């Protein structure tokens, strides 16, 4: 069934279809309509869940951690400073290996105060141990949230679905809503292996010592470092698992996705633009225009950011003439975080492409198709001397 709704409502519908059992969220712009819609679903009985009204984002995620520990399907959502306020629990949820899904409706981080879009909030949590998926349209938001529960529950790692504030959260576009029965087939009920319950009182995530030690049964109990190692190994495995899950989603729902990245006119491209989130939509038009003018340009719209699909990207981008990375976040004093990650992935490749990094759209700063067009043209025409990396689009505008 096609509906015409906002990105926030697409996310809310997905949470309902996933039959989330505990929702705890604190309203923050531009996430607010998502949590409002969910509270309506719970109030009307359309969604059989506990909606816990909390006093902060830190508590919101703490509630989800408690809920997920009892094997309840938990959901929260936030933006910007709300995400940073819950940061301690963000790391905890991943270290505790609790499957849950959080939507991060991307917004610039204060100070100075901004309610507008960029990616600094979720990118700043890149190393927290969560899987990060970026959606670029409403259908991807809806599908990704449902797939994210399957992924989280398969690898016992929480998943962030990130989508652009306003550009996606508050704009309307048509998207298909799958049948509840089909989603139930794809996403059966889940049982967490360390499940908390009265039948077996358990203290979870107890203090670990620098070394391993015998547990009460006299068996070797892994220490902190083994658990961190396990999280990393499982994160790497999650790349292939997510691809497989996407295939199962396509079988059951009838619509596949691009679990790692969407390739647009990449096959014979000499130059490839790379971007996260909704700006990729705009770049497809720019790619078309550059193609008409004879430049062999393609676009890689990356959706899976953590775990970083380095093998996929190396295979895709090694041997190209150039790679242009557009980013709405920056690792201050260095470059865009994605740019640095991509450089590392391509360093081992046989033929390293030239690489450029553009920072744009911070705090909602306007950008237009002409900006991408001129930015890509500058790289093609002027080569390594195009600008001092990173280049900034829209300064002083």
């Amino acid at each position: 069934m096609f509906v015409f709704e906002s990105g926030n409502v697409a996310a809310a519908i997905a949470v309902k279809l996933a039959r989330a059992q505990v929702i705890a969220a604190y309203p923050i712009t531009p996430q607010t309509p998502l949590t409002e819609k969910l509270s309506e679903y719970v109030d009307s009985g359309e969604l059989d869940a506990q909606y816990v009204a909390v006093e902060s984002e830190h508590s919101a995620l703490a509630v989800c951690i408690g809920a997920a520990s009892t094997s309840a399907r938990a959901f929260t959502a936030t933006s910007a400073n709300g995400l940073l306020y819950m940061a301690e629990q963000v790391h905890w949820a991943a270290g505790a290996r609790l499957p849950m899904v959080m939507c991060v409706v991307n917004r610039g981080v204060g100070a100075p105060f901004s309610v507008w879009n960029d990616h600094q909030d979720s990118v700043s949590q890149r190393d927290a141990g969560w899987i990060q998926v970026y959606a670029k349209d409403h259908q991807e938001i809806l599908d990704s949230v449902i797939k994210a529960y399957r992924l989280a529950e398969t690898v016992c790692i929480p998943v962030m679905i990130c989508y652009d504030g306003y550009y996606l959260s508050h704009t309307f576009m048509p998207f298909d809503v799958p049948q509840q029965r089909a989603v139930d087939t794809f996403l059966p009920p889940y049982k967490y292996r360390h499940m908390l319950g009265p039948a077996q009182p358990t203290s979870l995530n107890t203090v670990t010592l620098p070394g391993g030690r015998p547990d009460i049964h006299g068996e070797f109990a892994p220490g902190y470092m083994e658990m961190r190692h396990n999280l990393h190994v499982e994160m790497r495995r999650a790349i292939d698992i997510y691809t497989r899950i996407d295939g199962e989603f396509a079988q059951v729902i009838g619509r596949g996705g691009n679990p790692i990245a969407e390739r647009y006119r990449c096959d014979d491209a000499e130059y490839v633009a790379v971007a996260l989130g909704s700006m990729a939509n705009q770049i497809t038009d720019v790619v078309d225009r550059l193609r008409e003018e004879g430049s062999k340009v393609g676009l890689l719209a990356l959706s899976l950011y953590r775990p970083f699909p380095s093998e996929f990207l190396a295979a895709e981008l090694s041997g190209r003439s150039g790679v242009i990375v557009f980013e709405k976040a920056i690792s201050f004093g260095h470059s865009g975080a994605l740019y640095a990650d991509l450089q590392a992935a391509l360093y081992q490749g046989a033929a390293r492409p030239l690489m450029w990094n553009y920072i744009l759209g911070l705090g909602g700063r306007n950008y237009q198709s002409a900006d991408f067009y001129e930015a890509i043209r500058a790289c093609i025409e002027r080569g390594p001397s195009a600008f001092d990396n990173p280049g900034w689009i829209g300064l002083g505008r």
Partner: protein
Amino acid sequence: MPTEELSVLTSASYAGPGDAGRTGSWRVLRPVIDYQKCAPARADKPLCFLCWLYCPDAVVSKTRRPQISLDYCKGCGICAEECPPKAITMVEESSFAGTE
């Protein structure tokens, strides 16, 4: 490293003695019970048991002659503090050296 360790997600402990290891090895002061003063031992009746109740590590037995598991007693001294007839004395561990 055994492969089954890779399947371990996080640390968890279940109710039972000694989940944090043999914590008795930390002990500096050892509780010693004088059964001439201990209320249940003297009366030969199930009474008092404040040492059992207050022990944060649950290492005191609820018996008419309470026993303390030195494998797990950390020597905190709460039992000695709470004992109404002052039947429990905290004794320097070093004074037992060579005697056991």
